[in-house]
Every structure is written in C-alpha cells, then in structure tokens.
C-alpha cells in the first residue's frame, strides 16, 4: 500500500464530488486555454521580426493608410534606401461559412528580402509567381483551415473592395508561421483587377542601419510636408509598438478575465477540499494517533487536490486542443471560424496540466494547513 494508492482511492471516494470538481476545472481550463490562445496569437503577431532598419511609410492622418503611388519612385530614390516594396491590402471571405482571409498585394522580385520570415521561400516559387498573373502564395494555416492544395484555385468575396471578388491560383505555400494567416499576390494583378492604380497602402524601405533610418525618415517626411497627402515614416518596431498599444487593451482585458477564472478555479477547488477535510477529520486524527507526522496529512490533502486539478487541467486543455484540431480538419458538425483564427498549440496541453495542478496546490493550501492541525481527540469517544 503506497501513498499514491491511498491518494487515488481517496480521489475515487466521493465520485460525484470529484467528478463535479474536476468538471469545474475542465470548463475553466478550457476557457483559460482559449483565452491564452487568443493572447498568444496576438502577441506572436505583434512581436515577430520587428526591426529598426526597416521603415514603413504611411499616410499621416488617414486610417487605413493610403497615399499616392506617384510618391513611390521619389521615396525609392532617397539616398540611403537600399531596397523597397509596397503593400496593398485585400481581404474577404474565403468560403460561405464566413472564413476570413487577408491578402497582401506586393512586388514579387524582392518578396523574400523585404519580408522577414520568408527567407526560406523557394526562389522557384517567385519565378512561378512571376509567370502566373493570378498566382498566390498562401500561409499554411489557411491551407490547413480550408483544406486547399497547391495548384487549385480559390475565390475571395472581398469586403474591402466591393464588387471586386478576385480569383487566385495557389502557386505555393509560405514557409514558417509568421505569415501563416496571410496570402501574398502580385501588385500588378491587384492594380488592374481592383482598378486601384493611383494609391498604395504602405511602402516598406530597407535602410543600412538605424542612424541611416532616422535620416531617411526625416527626409521622406520633409519631402511631402507641403503636399495634401502628408506621410509619416516610422521604424517597423515603432509601428509594431503602436499596434501593440491598441491590442494591449484587448490583451489586458483577456488577461483580467483569465486571472478571474484562475481565482474562481482556486475557490471551487478550495471549497471542495475543505468539505473533504471536514468529513475526514477523525480519519486524519487516526493517522496522527498511529504516528504519522502532520506533514503526511498535509501531503495527503494537497496531493488529492493536485491530482484532481491536474486531471481536470489536462482534460480541459486536451478537449480544447482536440476540438481545435477537429475544427481545422472540418471534422465537426459545425465549423467554428473563431477557433480557426486562434489555433491552439500542443504546448497548451502542458499548460493545462500545470495550471490545473497549480490551482490544486493553491486551493488546498488552507484546508491542508487546517487538516494537519486536526486534534487527536477527534478520534476518541465523546464520553469521559
């Protein structure tokens, strides 16, 4: 008879209570996992590959940014600009279920050089894109989500460009996960198909170093200071910081909800363990009378709570992870497009286990401290 045997048997003792407590942890860890997936995805998108030597040129006041395309050659000619590209944003629905897709129309000749995260892109795909006017390089998540294959065509029902639903042919897959939620296509196709030949959304500049970047930024801003469409130039990392500032509010709200959930979990578990301790006071007194140290009783109570918490945690995270996988593979009766935007990585299984176990540990601390102080008189007859 080992300690673990005793723990397992105690866990199975009041089955209804154990199941209900574990179920509460399952639900709360599932919500926690989803919330964490959202913040994880946002943080990942915000924090990746920010650089001081890449500058972004935007319209100074208009959101979303849009400035005249005639600025582009002038900016490209500024001393210190080593390379450049432009972006046009094009987004829409990828299917009737409402799955959203975000496309970026850009120059193909320096796609790899101007987009951190695409260094591993096969140069043959660039050539293939240059041959195929409607070609698209699609992020892996979109392919998985839509169950698309390279070579097939897809149509986007645009909500950024009304009556400009474009058709694309998948030429290849974007490597890595920086652009996993996006697809790239040719800017000339965009300009013609969307009849938008006069503007660009963003221009990206590659400069030699940070000092050079400051000078170039000042020069470009000055160049159009008296034009009707003024521009703002900032480093990529500054742009990211500004975006992060906005998303920080969302992330803070989610983090607050997660914190409340964790406290809630601790209270649920503490309440359950407290009831258990109250019911087993005389039993704990027996352990003490027989010669077991108070630390044994402490470990017994905490161990039981950690076991229930860890079990609930792994089931909660595992269920969410499983649903996420089935949803991505379109194996569920109803597809949840929300879940597709925030995929749940496998590492969250471990998070669920750790969160559940930690909640068990914290939630049982006070009941366990009371349990180890139980008086031995609890075991004796009430007379005399």
């Amino acid at each position, binding site marked *: *008879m080992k300690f673990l045997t*005793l723990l397992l*048997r*105690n866990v*199975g*003792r009041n089955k209804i209570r154990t199941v209900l407590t574990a179920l509460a942890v399952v639900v709360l860890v599932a919500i926690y996992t989803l919330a964490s997936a959202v913040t994880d995805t946002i943080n990942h998108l915000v924090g990746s590959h920010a650089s001081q030597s890449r500058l972004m040129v935007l319209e100074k006041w208009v959101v979303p940014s849009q400035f005249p395309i005639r600025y582009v050659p002038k900016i490209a000619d500024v001393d210190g600009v080593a390379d450049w590209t432009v972006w046009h944003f094009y987004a829409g629905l990828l299917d009737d279920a409402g799955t959203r897709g975000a496309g970026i129309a850009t120059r193909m000749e320096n796609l790899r050089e101007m987009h951190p995260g695409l260094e591993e892109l096969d140069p043959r795909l660039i050539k293939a894109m240059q041959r195929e006017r409607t070609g698209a390089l699609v992020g892996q998540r979109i392919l998985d989500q839509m169950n698309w294959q390279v070579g097939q065509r897809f149509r986007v029902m645009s909500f950024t460009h009304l009556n400009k639903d474009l058709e694309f042919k998948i030429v290849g897959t974007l490597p890595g996960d920086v652009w996993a939620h996006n697809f790239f296509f040719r800017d000339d196709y965009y300009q013609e198909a969307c009849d938008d030949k006069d503007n660009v959304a963003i221009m990206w500049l590659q400069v030699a170093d940070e000092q050079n970047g400051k000078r170039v930024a000042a020069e470009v801003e000055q160049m159009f200071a008296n034009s009707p469409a003024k521009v703002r130039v900032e480093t990529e990392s500054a742009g990211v910081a500004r975006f992060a500032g906005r998303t920080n509010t969302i992330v803070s709200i989610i983090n607050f909800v997660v914190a409340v959930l964790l406290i809630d979990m601790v209270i649920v578990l503490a309440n359950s363990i407290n009831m258990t301790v109250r019911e087993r006071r*005389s*039993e704990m*007194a*027996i352990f*003490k*009378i*027989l*010669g*077991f*140290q108070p630390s044994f009783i402490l470990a017994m109570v905490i161990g039981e709570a950690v076991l229930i918490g860890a079990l609930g945690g792994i089931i909660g995270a595992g269920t969410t992870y499983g649903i996420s996988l089935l949803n991505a593979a379109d194996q569920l009766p109803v597809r949840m497009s929300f879940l597709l935007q925030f995929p749940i990585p496998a590492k969250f299984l471990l998070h669920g286990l750790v969160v559940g176990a930690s909640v068990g540990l914290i939630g049982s601390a006070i009941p366990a401290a009371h349990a180890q102080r139980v008086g*031995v*008189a609890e*075991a*004796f*007859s009430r*007379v*005399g």
Partner: protein
Amino acid sequence: MTDAIVHVESVYKEYLTGSEPVRVLHGVDLEMAAGDYVSLIGPSGSGKSTLLNLIAGLDRPTSGRIIIAGEAISEMDEASVARWRSAHIGFIFQFYHLIPVLTAYENVELPLLLFDMPAAKRRKQVNIALDLVNLDHRVKHRPGQLSGGEQQRVGIARALVTDPALIVADEPTGDLDGHTSEEILDLLQAVHETLGKTILLVTHDPRAASRAQRLVHMDSGVLVEGNAESLREAFPGWANGH
C-alpha cells in the same frame, strides 16, 4: 526510573476555558505492571479521556511525569512522541476508525508503514495479527463490507501488529450489540492472557470493566483504586443484575 510499563506520577492537567484555567486532573498517580489489564471507569467529564490521552502520548500534562515502557514521554517533543507512539502504543477505538478506502489487510498494515521494514516481514506480521483475530478470510474486504464486530477485530489486529508495550482501548464495545461485545471482550481477554499484553481499558460498560484484573475509578479528576463496590456505584443498574 521504574520497571512498570505505565508510571504516572503526580499528574495535573489544566485546560483554558476562555481565559479561565479549568483543572481536569488533580495529581493523578497510576502504576501498571507488564501484563496488567486495567479498567478505567468513571462518570462523564471525570477526566478519563484526558488521562488516556496523556498516557498514550497524545497530550502533555501541565505538571507531573509520565513514563511508559521506560520512556519519559511527558518530556518528549511532538515529533518524537509521535514516533515513539507508533512503536509502543496500540489503539482500539469505540468507532473502530478504520480507513474506509483501505482493505482489512491494508488497515492493519498501516502502522507498519512508519517503520523501515521489508515488505515480506510486514506481510508476515499483518497475517499473524489478522490470524489472531480470526479474520484471515476477510483480508481483502473494506470496512464497509464488514460487520461492526469484524471491523473492531480489524481494529484490534491493527493495535497488535506493531507488538506494542501497551494497548489503550477507548470504549471498544460502545458501538456493538451485547453478543458482539462479549466476543470482543473475549478477544481482548485472550490477547491479555495468551500474548501477555498490558491493556488499559476505558469503558462505560460494566461487563467490559468487570473483565479486567484491576479497576481504577476516576471521579472529578482524582483516581482511586476500585473494586466491586466501585462498579456498583458507577453502574447501579448492573449491580442489580441488569
């Protein structure tokens, strides 16, 4: 130092009720030799359980000395006395207090887990103890699957398994019917006579009290040697043959 198994010398015990100290034991002296079977009787609130707790090392006296099996337990710290208790005292309770999730075998084995003992030796001792109480056929049953009498037998086996110097029984028949009580008392008597165990029995049951070799009577915190007269005083109904 004394050769007695139990040596209680001028023991006083006070509890605080609010800020008021309440004296429960008033200079108790008790001596039990090896192999003694002593019944401790007395009315409710007389201090019997307090004395039992002190002798078993579950509480400390306010003053006085308690020496059990040659060890001055009244001077030990809590951790030491817990270790000592596991090796030297066997407990039998009114409500058996078996661990419901453990089998009869595992309940009896429980006190041995505190010792650094090979599994084979542990198994042998558990089987001997269960054999002594005639429960070798119920080893895999949990307490909920046993009758009250059988549970108390498991309790007695658990008390015997460490071969303790002293067995302390707190109302061991208090939760049993008359017939089963007699069986348990027979068993305790056999433990005393065949194994030569020293037993201190606290009871309200005159039949149980009368089985002991010696009677001590506690009244208002004072312990006096008892006799048949004490029993008649303590249990007038029983004295009339009921």
